[in-house]
């Protein structure tokens, strides 16, 4: 009898415990959001994919309300990105520097890590894991897990002291590692570093603004994983092939993919292609129209999107 009561108590308690766990995990991620925006720090890190390792250094500084950040690749030809608030300038070997309107530097962390975490909650769960040591510091594991099998999951190890991310794993549905960001060293400062002060004072190329055009979106999705919305729609010439395509960018806040709609080429694409880092391509031909979907998502998800697209009424 006593045992039964205990089980009953345990059962009624379970949801509460789970809820507490999830909100604690969310608080960790919210601390990370703040830290990424408001701390002065420098991260030395490596980004690992199946066949390659990139060494990078990331600097972040705050001046009054303004932010300055620098991401530099440490090996190979010069490749850097500088962010001054919502403007990112790319400095790359052999290419004239150019500026883009962006709130974060792409290619390191998902943008949502620095703001908007709470908006992920309908489609992702936050789960508190154990602690481990990363970059010589104590780190708390938080998992960002999708409720459905249509997207990948993130595992984030946060510095217990500062809540800055020390390790970020992108993991597929079978728990294989697709990509890993690993901090080797974290330095924190009271003030923005002299390097960032210098960068802030320099003149940088203007942001390129794409011509604003009112375009009527002509397509409708027959199937999308919950939470994905069209963020951008345009028509452009496909890089390298110079074929006109209609382009849609979709995102659920964390994962994103591109949809291309164009006339079918005389060479059909392979049904799907997957890269070691999770980037995949799926295509479908509907009559004379070819739909190509590209993104870091399970290739089955992309294929389903490609197969279920219709002209808007």
């Amino acid at each position: 009898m006593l045992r039964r009561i205990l089980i009953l108590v345990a059962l009624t308690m379970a949801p509460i415990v789970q809820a507490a766990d999830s909100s604690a995990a969310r608080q960790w991620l919210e601390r990370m959001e703040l830290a990424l925006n408001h701390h002065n720090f420098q991260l030395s890190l490596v980004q690992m994919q199946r066949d390659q390792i990139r060494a990078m250094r990331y600097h972040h500084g705050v001046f009054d309300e303004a932010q300055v950040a620098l991401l530099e690749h440490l090996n190979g030809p010069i490749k850097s990105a500088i962010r001054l608030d919502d403007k990112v300038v790319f400095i790359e070997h052999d290419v004239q520097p150019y500026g883009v309107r962006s709130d974060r530097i792409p290619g390191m962390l998902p943008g949502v890590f620095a703001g908007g975490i709470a908006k992920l909650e309908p489609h992702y769960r936050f789960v508190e894991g154990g602690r481990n040591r990363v970059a010589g510091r104590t780190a708390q594991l938080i998992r960002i897990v999708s409720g459905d099998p249509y997207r990948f999951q993130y595992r984030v190890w946060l510095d217990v002291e500062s809540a800055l991310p020390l390790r970020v794993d992108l993991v597929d549905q079978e728990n294989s590692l697709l990509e890993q960001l690993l901090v080797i060293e974290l330095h924190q400062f009271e003030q923005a570093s002299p390097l960032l002060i210098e960068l802030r004072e320099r003149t940088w190329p203007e942001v390129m603004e794409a011509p604003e055009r009112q375009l009527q979106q002509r397509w409708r999705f027959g199937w999308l994983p919950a939470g994905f919305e069209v963020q951008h729609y345009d028509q452009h010439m496909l890089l390298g092939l110079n074929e006109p395509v209609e382009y849609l960018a979709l995102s659920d806040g964390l994962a994103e993919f591109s949809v291309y709609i164009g006339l079918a080429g005389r060479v059909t694409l392979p049904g799907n292609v997957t890269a070691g880092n999770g980037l995949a391509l799926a295509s479908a031909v509907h009559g004379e129209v070819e739909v190509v979907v590209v993104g870091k998502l399970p290739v089955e998800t992309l294929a389903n999107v490609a197969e279920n697209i219709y002209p808007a009424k």
Partner: protein
Amino acid sequence: MVTERQEQLSACVDGQEHGDILDRICAEPELQQQWHRYHLIGDAMRGELPATLQFDIADKVAMQLEQEPTILAPKPSKRRFALPAQVVSLGQRFGQYAIAAGVAAVAVVGVQQYGAEQSLTSPIPVLQTTPLLGAPTPASYSVPGMGVQEPQRDAEREAHEQHLRANAFLRDHLLQQRLNGIVVDAPAQSQDR
């Protein structure tokens, strides 16, 4: 060791040897790919080469993809989830839509350079000038019964074009992501520290 296994594999494809090699192939992705290639080689010799060679697109795409060079492998298409596709007579309905001819080219310094660089090194223009149904060949090549060469070359070229196309989409995706930027609702600094 590796070559020994390859020999076994080769013999197995030719139907000369059986045994536990199939189990081992299934267990090792590298062998699996080899198996696939050997089968294609065998097919080609028997004149059964498929219309397109898809197996090495992957590697080639990867090599060209500058920003995210990774090994690409066509994934075995096991659907972990299946959804009923909506049946609509797409062909007819799509036919009414012609893709606008004068679409906006994104005027971007970086992109233009990217494009220019591409056209210098890429063999696309060459490929486009060749006739659709195979490159012109000396008459002696077209003697009936000698023709393994031709379909093979067509398939190769098709594979090459496939990889160029796939590559173009992957790169464009990365470029668009960059150009469109990241929008973040920056959290207010309230309870920080």
